[in-house]
């Protein structure tokens, strides 16, 4: 039985009752109830325990400003969602709600003992103690405090609810569908604007639906009914209810979360509006007096809402402490309507001096101006200090200041025990006093020191009282004290909703090469590399990655392998100034490049550091194709565009990004050339006609257009075959088919890395780390002395020419049965466990070379180019070992380069 439900009235649906649970107890309510109204209807007065002192708390308000009634509710999958306000939870059949932060139970909470120690636990007490012993804070005190702090508990179970993100735009966005908002929306609609009207409540009309002014009820209802019809009929107004506008951002952007749509738990909308109207009404403020937090103390407007909207009888005997006479009259009328006895009202000059009642208000003590004290027996105390405008969504231009409501008479901050200024964080008036006394009188300091306003209610019912207290304590004008910076969200919004469907694999899109399906057919194991899914290795039978890589490397060095190179950036460059442009961009000489030839090229940043490396191929007069590394593809493209558009707009150059247009497969190995010939290109591909460092354009098999580059990353004779991306699958199969006779072996990133390290080729991310110059990397002979280029000037800075810089070298172990630890630091002496030493460099790559049969590595070593044949130590304290190494030339394999010219 719902003991405190009125027999008739309310916007609830009495035709079907709903069973719900609170702390395991079965209760009943109706559709249209919030959890708060249903609990009140069932005469449940204590709903929570406060965070610090574990004081029993009830329901103060009927909206998002609720500071006390925090509960945890199970979602449809059974996970407990903590910290929900009972006033924002709509009653659903089977709803399971639990109180938080109490033990062993809500009624008998051991934590309440903390109230006995309150005088030692005032604001900032934890800064003044917990300092001894030194390890005491992390080992003991912090652990204790963390257990006691925090509101609800979150389970680690994954969230299975469904969310979505959407966008909308409109001419006018009206936030708040109360009477003011409705009027604004209709006016905008009348001007033929596209209007969005949002409200976080379940229906349109706001408080005018139930906050009936005595004597005017009929007109109000009539007016509302009319407006609702108009809203319905206006085709250019869209109403979104259960939609919380939580933040306003630049250029007309408002972010909202819409709840309770079928199929989707919530939708996060980004709304761009040309005009935004805030019709968010006002928030009623409580009074501050000793014992102002007991269950049964409720804001006046909330009382009226519970009576009229939810048909709840909030108490049996009520006392009114309401400043505004109209509010007082309206509340009194509502109470009469609900059959509640009114035992008294706070008069002029009177203050409340104390309240009693452990789990529910019992008595209110009133002190008259003359000093006489009178007690009133009541279980409901309706309070109101007045209203403050709800402007939390205003953009933060300057500071927001309260308009002095002119209600300061009689309600100056009243000291005394348990006079709460912030209910949720258990901040009392005395805490504000302590803060001011200790130097924290600037409102931002007061907030951080006492934690006032830092709870999940964002201080909606705290700031007025706090400002009042600060004004009294510091002698400042009320109106001169600004609020702390108002930060979104207006009320907490679900992380799940904000993430939408961008979870798991869908966080950011996956990029696949045009060969992807072909690679899958050959049992490729893929690797996430940046945004790409890249071929890592191709295991045969049950072989391990190490064995697969060995086999792949062997195949490339002795037969032929094929590897997907499609992810490299490619730009087509045309124009009468094309070579001039490229000459400025790359640090090496390329002006004399001939048609049909290509050149390895290095690009520097403006500050002289190596930015990217790739190739420049001359296709014809004034026509080039350049490549960039995968990782820098986007930034190089951006950079080239910038140079041409911003800095050198007079150059006649046209760029076309063709990275995704061509699929690129490299075939590498002693048999690469014969394999290429077997693919029937319409150009000659013998060594004389198609030498190393050249490019040919034509057709394969008279069917597929192609461009083939003879260049080598691996150190073997190699041809990168480019075809239009849609022919990728064909090309791959063709290569595998024709290559069968030559021992064709697909290989991936792992083998590619081994091969390039054996050749001493540099790689972005390893040797090219954004801090190395071309000279550091042993490419001094590539830096042109004949021309100006980007980076040339700043390369001349003295520190960049210092010989004591980290310089690229090769390393081999002195004892070739040992291996060089990966990620090792280089030191001059043998490292032993516990040694503290200066590092003189670090490894950039270390492998067990299948080709050379020993461990090799590349490293950046101080003064490396002048230390050839020196021995030093590669130390890895992480692996607890160090290996003696010798400095050698970084090209370990075929230094003369005869193999790649084959």
């Amino acid at each position, binding site marked *: 039985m719902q003991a405190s439900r009125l027999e008739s009235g309310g916007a609830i649906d009495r035709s079907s009752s709903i069973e719900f649970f609170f702390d395991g107890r079965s209760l009943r309510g109706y559709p249209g109830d919030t959890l708060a109204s249903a609990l009140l209807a069932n005469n449940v007065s204590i709903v929570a325990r406060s965070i610090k002192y574990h004081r029993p708390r009830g329901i103060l308000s009927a909206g998002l400003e609720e500071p006390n009634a925090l509960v945890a509710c199970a979602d449809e999958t059974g996970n407990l969602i903590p910290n929900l306000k009972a006033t924002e939870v709509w009653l659903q059949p089977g709803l399971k709600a639990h109180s938080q932060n109490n033990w062993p139970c809500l009624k008998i909470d051991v934590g309440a003992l903390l109230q006995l120690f309150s005088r030692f636990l005032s604001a900032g007490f934890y800064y003044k103690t917990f300092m001894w012993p030194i390890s005491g804070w992390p080992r003991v005190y912090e652990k204790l405090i963390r257990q006691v702090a925090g509101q609800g508990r979150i389970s680690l179970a994954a969230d299975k609810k469904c969310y979505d993100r959407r966008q909308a735009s409109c001419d006018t966005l009206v936030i708040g569908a109360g009477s003011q908002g409705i009027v604004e929306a209709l006016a905008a609609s009348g001007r033929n604007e596209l209007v969005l009207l949002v409200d976080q409540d379940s229906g349109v009309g706001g408080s005018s639906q139930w906050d009936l002014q005595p004597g005017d009820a009929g007109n109000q209802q009539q007016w509302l009914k009319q407006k609702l019809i108009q809203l319905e009929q206006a085709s250019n107004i869209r109403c979104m209810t259960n939609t919380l506008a939580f933040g306003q951002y630049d*250029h007309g952007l408002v972010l909202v979360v819409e709840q309770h749509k079928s199929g989707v738990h919530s939708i996060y909308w980004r709304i761009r509006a040309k005009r935004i109207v805030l019709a968010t009404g006002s928030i009623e403020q409580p009074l501050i007096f000793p014992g102002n937090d007991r269950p049964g103390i409720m804001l006046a407007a909330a009382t009226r809402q519970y009576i009229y909207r939810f048909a709840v009888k909030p108490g049996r005997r009520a006392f009114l402490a309401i400043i505004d006479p109209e509010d007082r009259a309206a509340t009194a009328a509502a109470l009469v309507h609900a059959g509640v006895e009114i035992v008294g009202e706070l008069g002029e000059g009177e203050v409340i001096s104390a309240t009693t009642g452990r789990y529910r208000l019992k008595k209110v003590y009133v002190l008259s101006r003359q000093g006489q004290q009178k007690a009133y027996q009541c279980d409901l105390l309706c309070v109101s200090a007045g209203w403050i405008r709800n402007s939390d969504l205003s953009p933060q231009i300057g500071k927001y200041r309260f308009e002095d409501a002119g209600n300061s008479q009689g309600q100056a901050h009243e000291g005394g025990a348990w006079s709460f200024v912030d209910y949720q964080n258990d901040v009392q008036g005395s805490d504000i006093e302590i803060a001011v006394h200790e130097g924290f009188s600037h409102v931002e300091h007061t907030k951080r020191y006492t934690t006032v306003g830092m709870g999940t209610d964002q201080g909606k019912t705290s700031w007025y009282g706090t400002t009042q207290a600060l004004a009294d304590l510091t002698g400042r004008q009320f109106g001169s004290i600004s609020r702390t910076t108002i930060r979104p969200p207006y009320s907490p919004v679900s992380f799940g909703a904000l993430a939408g469907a961008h979870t798991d694999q869908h966080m950011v899109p996956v990029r696949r090469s045009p060969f992807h399906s072909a690679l899958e057919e050959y049992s490729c194991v893929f690797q996430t590399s940046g945004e790409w899914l890249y071929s890592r290795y191709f295991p045969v039978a049950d072989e391990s990655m190490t064995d697969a890589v060995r086999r792949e490397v062997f195949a490339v060095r002795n037969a032929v392998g094929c590897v997907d190179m499609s992810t490299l950036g490619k730009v087509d460059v045309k124009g*009468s100034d094309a070579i001039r442009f490229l000459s400025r961009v790359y640090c090496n000489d390329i002006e004399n490049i001939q048609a049909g030839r290509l050149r390895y090229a290095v690009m520097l940043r403006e500050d002289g550091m190596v930015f990217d490396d790739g190739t420049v191929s001359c296709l014809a007069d004034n026509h080039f194709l350049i490549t960039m590394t995968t990782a820098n593809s986007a930034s190089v493209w*951006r950079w080239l565009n910038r140079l041409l*558009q911003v800095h050198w707009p007079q*150059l006649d150059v046209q760029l076309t990004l063709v990275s995704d247009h061509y699929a690129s497969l490299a075939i590498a190995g002693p048999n690469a050339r014969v394999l290429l010939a077997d693919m029937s290109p319409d150009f000659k591909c013998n060594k004389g006609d198609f030498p190393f460092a050249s490019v040919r354009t034509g057709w394969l098999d008279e069917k597929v257009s192609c461009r083939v580059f003879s260049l080598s990353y691996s150190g073997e004779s190699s041809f990168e075959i480019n075809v239009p991306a849609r022919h990728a699958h064909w090309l791959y199969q063709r290569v595998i088919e024709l290559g069968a006779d030559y021992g064709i072996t697909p290989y991936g990133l792992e083998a590619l890395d081994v091969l390039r390290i054996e050749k001493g080729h540099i790689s972005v991310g390893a040797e090219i780390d954004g801090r190395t110059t071309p000279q550091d990397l042993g490419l001094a002979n590539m830096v042109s002395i004949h021309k100006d280029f980007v980076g040339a000037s700043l390369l001349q800075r003295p520190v960049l020419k210092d010989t004591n810089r980290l310089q690229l070298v090769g390393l081999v172990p002195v004892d070739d049965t040992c291996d060089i630890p990966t990620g090792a630091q280089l030191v001059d002496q043998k490292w032993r466990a516990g040694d503290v030493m200066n590092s003189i460099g670090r490894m950039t790559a270390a492998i067990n070379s299948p080709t050379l049969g020993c461990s090799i590595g590349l490293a950046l070593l101080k003064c490396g180019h002048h230390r050839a044949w020196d021995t030093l130590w590669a130390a890895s304290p992480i692996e607890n070992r160090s290996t003696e190494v010798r400095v050698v030339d970084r090209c370990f394999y075929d230094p003369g380069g005869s193999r790649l010219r084959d």
Partner: protein
Amino acid sequence: MLLIPCPNCGERDEGEFNYGGSARVFPPIEKMAPVEDWHRSIHFASHEQGQVHEYWYHHGGCEYWIEIKRNLHNHEIASVKATRSDTDRSGT
């Protein structure tokens, strides 16, 4: 999220753009400008009382580099222009 008024595409969300630093002039290339010139050009941004001229690149649209004048205190965009003009491409 800022709305950036691309001269070609209209107002687009900042997510379609890359910020490219405050507007600056590179020393003339092919003239071997001294270290001091390049150092001044790339190492200093210019904010005059919170108003800046800056470059944005419309990667998710027309791929133009544009120059906007923006107030850093309130994000108001006072002017915008494409950095290049198609009539400029006369060659050298």
